[in-house]
């Protein structure tokens, strides 16, 4: 599982008075060809996910005992009715990949949503209430970071039982510390600034201060982390699926498909290669997008 440490964006917010922040953002973003490519791929994956019902030539669950392990159409023995071949029990790989896109996006978004929601609250609390609360939260996060993330995720799945939902929860817990740390760092940087002090003086309550003053100003690093987090989540969930602990069959999750296909690695390259490729492309697209966002949102690199 590849966690953390692409360069964490700094908490500073663009200074100066550009014409329109969104337009400025777009001009930086669109100049980055990689990021645009990432965005396009993500849109395509999204479309595949949304229109899987229409695009898929077969049901992803439909087994056919006459076409076990058929190769893709361009290979000898393949047929156009199963464009990318079939798996060990005769299900259409293309259809399963399309439905898998749906799952992978859901995994990415749900994991990030859970981790972000909890992470922001913990980070805000740690940043605002110093002392014992902060120490407790940050120590706990350190401990979570000390354990190898996959091991921790496996233990959590073992506790909750294998399954897609539980795997998502496990991954969310494992990546939680990153969000807590970023939020806390941003909060600490922000609270020393004049506008917060001004708000405090004018009698704003802590809660209001937290959510309506400080939080919006930490948005930039969080958005970047969230985009990169989607890719981490997809990878981690796939790794769990690969170890047989993620989504359970017949769910067409890519990691699970890969685990199922492993025994045919020497015999049917397509059942192994294609789901992995799907994971790689999607994860790469999110990473490209995340990079592009960071560059566009981080003033330091704009020079």
């Amino acid at each position: 599982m590849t966690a953390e440490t692409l360069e964490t964006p700094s908490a500073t917010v663009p200074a100066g008075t550009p014409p329109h922040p969104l337009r400025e953002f777009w001009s930086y973003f669109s100049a980055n060809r990689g990021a645009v490519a990432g965005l396009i791929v993500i849109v395509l994956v999204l479309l595949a996910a949304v229109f899987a019902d229409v695009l898929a030539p077969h049901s992803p669950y439909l087994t056919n005992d006459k076409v076990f392990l058929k190769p893709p159409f361009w290979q000898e023995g393949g047929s156009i009715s199963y464009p990318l071949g079939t798996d060990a029990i005769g299900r259409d790989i293309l259809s399963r990949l399309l439905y898998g896109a749906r799952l992978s996006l859901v995994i990415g978004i749900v994991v990030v949503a859970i981790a972000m929601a909890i992470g922001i609250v913990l980070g805000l609390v740690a940043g605002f209430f110093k002392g014992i609360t902060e120490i407790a939260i940050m120590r706990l996060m350190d401990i979570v970071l000390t354990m190898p993330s996959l091991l921790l995720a496996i233990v959590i799945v073992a506790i909750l039982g294998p399954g897609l939902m539980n795997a998502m929860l496990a991954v969310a817990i494992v990546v939680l510390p990153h969000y807590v740390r970023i939020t806390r760092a941003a909060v600490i940087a922000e609270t020393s600034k004049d506008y917060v002090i001004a708000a405090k003086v004018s009698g704003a309550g802590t809660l209001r201060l937290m959510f309506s003053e400080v939080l919006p100003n930490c948005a930039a690093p969080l958005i970047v982390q969230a985009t990169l987090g989607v890719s981490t989540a997809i990878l981690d969930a796939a790794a769990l699926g690969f170890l047989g602990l993620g989504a359970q069959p017949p769910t067409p999750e890519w990691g699970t498909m890969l685990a199922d296909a492993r025994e045919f690695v020497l015999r049917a390259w397509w059942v192994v290669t294609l789901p992995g490729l799907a994971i790689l492309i999607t994860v790469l697209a999110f990473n490209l997008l995340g990079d592009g966002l960071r560059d566009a949102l981080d003033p330091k690199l704009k020079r």
Partner: protein
Amino acid sequence: MLRFILTRVSLVIPTFLGITLLAFFLIRLVPGDPIETMAGERGIDATRHEILRKELGLDRPLLVQYGVYIERVLHGDLGKSIVTRESVISEFGALFPATIELALCAILLALIIGLPAGIIAAVKRNSIFDHGVMGISLTGYSMPIFWWGLLLILLFSVQLGITPVSGRIAVQYYIEPVTGFLTVDSLLAGDFDAFKSALSHLVLPAIVLGTVPLAVIARMTRSAMLEVLGEDYIRTARAKGMAPLRVVALHALRNALIPVITVIGLQVGALFTGAILTETIFSWPGVGKWLIEAISRRDYPILQGGTLLIGVVVMSVNLLVDLLYGLINPRIRHAR
């Protein structure tokens, strides 16, 4: 300086205790029964089940079990595996060198390729080389390494037959373990063929495990270099007519290395995660695979002891990195 070290070290103790707590109670929450798992399909009758629970100390209240456990840990006793009845420390000791050997090679590979690639990319910013390095490293970073490993085996071992498929060394060599690193031990034994065999077994797993750190190091080096190259003193040095190579080597690199070291430190935890998957794919007899097996067998002592020992290793590396960092960069020392 001493005060810095002391405060930093004292911070480790609560983390350590936290890890024991987490390892102990989290694992007890896992449903399942080690005795039942051991017995398999044929099962075990209730009386013998009860006797075994008692023998293994599983019948006592959890808190008491934890207390006993902590006391033993403080005496350096991590208990015995429920399944094999071997002491956790000796099993760890037998397998850990394999993991370390693999991890070191992976990091070494990542450094040898990642550092220069990152530096050149930064110096030749926006060149084709830069774009190439960034593209490849982002792909590496996005790689599902369990799949990557399978692909490499298919290509290099099965199709081309260049590398062995799995294991640490060809079976005809038996090298008496001294350091536990087969590459080192075979050299110590003066057996060059064995060394070659051990090395050829290392190549693919090290590539697989090194892929993500390589990507991270290349990217990190590049951005750290870019930052440093933009600093005033570099511009000054350049303006004074210093040779570009000297500027890079003498001034920029040294300063850029600081964040890179931190990143390497942070990668240690991630390396263990990668090791779990890599060892599974390559049948590498290391601790990652051992822990996964312990989970499926509900072997509590191994899991507790294993996580604890790995936690200690990760913590020590992080501590070392922090101290190194404090040494290189005096500003940090006084910040706390």
